[in-house]
């Protein structure tokens, strides 16, 4: 807990839509909607789309008329593009401070405590200028003595046009007025349930919440809520998270584009997810001791429902994909039932430990001292060089009926030679 910290929260405005606009400038000023996996619902909107009264979460089929009427541009999520643009933004931000935390694909906390001698608003404007010049992406920046206040400052920066996207709440002469103008539901860590509770008890705005009795907060919102209130009062309790926790479990799963009924198709999907999960394992130099596979139908459909899962403890900790494929196949045979329309299948690897910790075994060569590890290293190297899963297993199938539907995908502008943006000479 510290009194003398300074944090900036930098986040990209309408990130997915903004990424699309960098490479298709004709989209500037247009209402844009980006779809979720399987092109189901809108997950990201440009300001112009928000102004039409459309919200996040609305299913695509519900706005078909408006799309026609207002010439709304709709795109599938181009994660490859967004991921690449995100990593550029983060690398640029790292030039402005050695201490920062990537919070999500388009947000980062920067610790600026060592920079307090600077005019931080000017420094933030420089950051905003550089990010926009170098990537084409507009960002908003909020500064405060705690992460929670930085997030609120960011909200203010976005809300008021005259601030030009940058706002420093630290020691602001009208800080109390500003906090009084923000609803408690906007506070980081206050979800809809807590917001209801707070309103019921007379805490409507952030200033009121900051002044709430600590004992009451601790009782009703646990110590986590207490930390939030302390943060609202300028005491930093939540530090930057810079060491990514080594994974406790690795889950790989996706919903299907169209319902899957055949075991063969489920098997192909499970195989794909095993491969991906094992790749993640090897990236972190870990092995798994247990694998679980689950299947489920679509809970929202008025159809016969079935869901099941099964664990399998692996004889020896491993990251060798064929071991996992074999185990998963066995489980799937056990839990699969004919006659259901499956919506989702998933693979979870647990009992994860670093590969160097594998206890030696008297009778069997372990994953560590085996050519299996070498084979995996070789495959990983080839796939890394040639592109995801260029070299893979026959079991994933070639037709892949279960793949995610993404019919309105824009080109991979920054990662594929054949997709480069065109410039007219």
């Amino acid at each position, binding site marked *: 807990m510290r009194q003398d910290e300074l944090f900036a929260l930098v986040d990209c405005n309408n990130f997915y839509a903004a990424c699309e606009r960098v490479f298709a400038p004709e989209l500037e000023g247009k209402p844009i909607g980006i779809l979720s996996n399987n092109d189901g619902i809108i997950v990201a909107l440009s300001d112009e789309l928000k102004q039409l009264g459309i919200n996040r979460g609305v299913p695509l089929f519900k706005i078909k008329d408006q799309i026609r009427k207002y010439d709304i541009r709709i795109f599938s999520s181009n994660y490859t593009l967004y991921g690449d643009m995100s990593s550029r933004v983060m*690398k640029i931000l790292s030039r402005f401070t*050695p201490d920062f935390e990537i919070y999500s694909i388009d947000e980062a906390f920067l610790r600026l405590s060592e920079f307090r001698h600077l005019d931080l608003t000017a420094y933030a404007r420089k950051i905003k200028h550089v990010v926009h010049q170098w990537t084409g992406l507009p960002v908003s920046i909020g500064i405060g003595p705690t992460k929670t206040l930085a997030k609120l400052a960011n909200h203010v920066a976005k809300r008021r046009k005259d601030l030009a996207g940058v706002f420093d709440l630290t020691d602001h002469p009208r800080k109390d007025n500003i906090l009084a103008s923000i609803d408690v539901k906007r506070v980081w860590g206050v979800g809809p349930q807590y917001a209801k509770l707070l309103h019921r008890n007379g805490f409507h705005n952030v200033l009121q919440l900051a002044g709430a009795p600590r004992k009451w907060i601790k009782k009703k919102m646990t110590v986590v809520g207490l930390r939030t209130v302390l943060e609202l009062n300028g005491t930093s309790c939540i530090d930057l998270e810079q060491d990514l926790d080594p994974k406790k479990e690795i889950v790989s799963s996706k919903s299907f584009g169209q319902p899957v009924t055949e075991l063969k198709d489920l098997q192909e999907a499970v195989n794909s997810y095993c491969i991906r999960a094992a790749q993640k394992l090897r990236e972190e130099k870990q092995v798994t001791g247990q694998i679980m596979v689950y299947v489920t139908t679509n809970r929202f459909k008025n159809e016969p429902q079935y869901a099941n899962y099964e664990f399998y403890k692996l004889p020896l900790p491993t990251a060798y994909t064929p071991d996992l494929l074999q185990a998963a196949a066995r489980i799937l045979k056990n839990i699969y039932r004919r006659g259901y329309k499956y919506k989702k299948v998933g693979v979870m690897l647990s009992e994860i430990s670093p590969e160097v910790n594998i206890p030696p075994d008297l009778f069997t060569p372990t994953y560590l001292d085996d050519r299996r590890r070498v084979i995996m290293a070789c495959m990983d190297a080839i796939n890394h060089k040639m592109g995801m899963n260029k070299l893979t297993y026959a079991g994933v199938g070639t037709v892949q009926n279960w793949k995610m539907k993404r019919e309105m995908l824009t080109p991979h502008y920054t990662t594929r030679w054949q997709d480069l943006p065109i410039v007219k*000479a």
Partner: protein
Amino acid sequence: MNKITLRTDDTIDAIYRYERKTRLTRPLIGAEIPAGFPSPAQDYIESSLDLNELLIEHPTATFFVRVQGFSMINAGISPDDILIVDRALEPGHRKIIIAILEGELTVKRLLINDNRWFLTPENPEFSAVEISEDSDFQVWGVVTYAIHQVR
């Protein structure tokens, strides 16, 4: 293009985060060195030539684009060429830039005379365009290299 002045005490220009770079392969002396004969090249071994190092100064601000059209032929830019575009560089007189003009990405040479900006082609069959206050214009990036496949 507004210059932002950063008020520091002049001893600090920029702060860089330490980046753990990916592996740099160095050539190994593969074969065993026969006893008694060290290679005369031993002290002079350098790493292999890397095009990324040569061509890309600001990786986070660098993008590749593909050319369509003939208006920049005399600048050595042909249709289907790939251009390396660096958004971190400032546009200026005689720089070849990618611009957004009327909502479209275009490549032209920028000429600045008396504060008047012109997007000029490098091909007598095309004409220059002056950028005015009401032009729908923005600089997208500065072209540093053109990659041309010879046939």
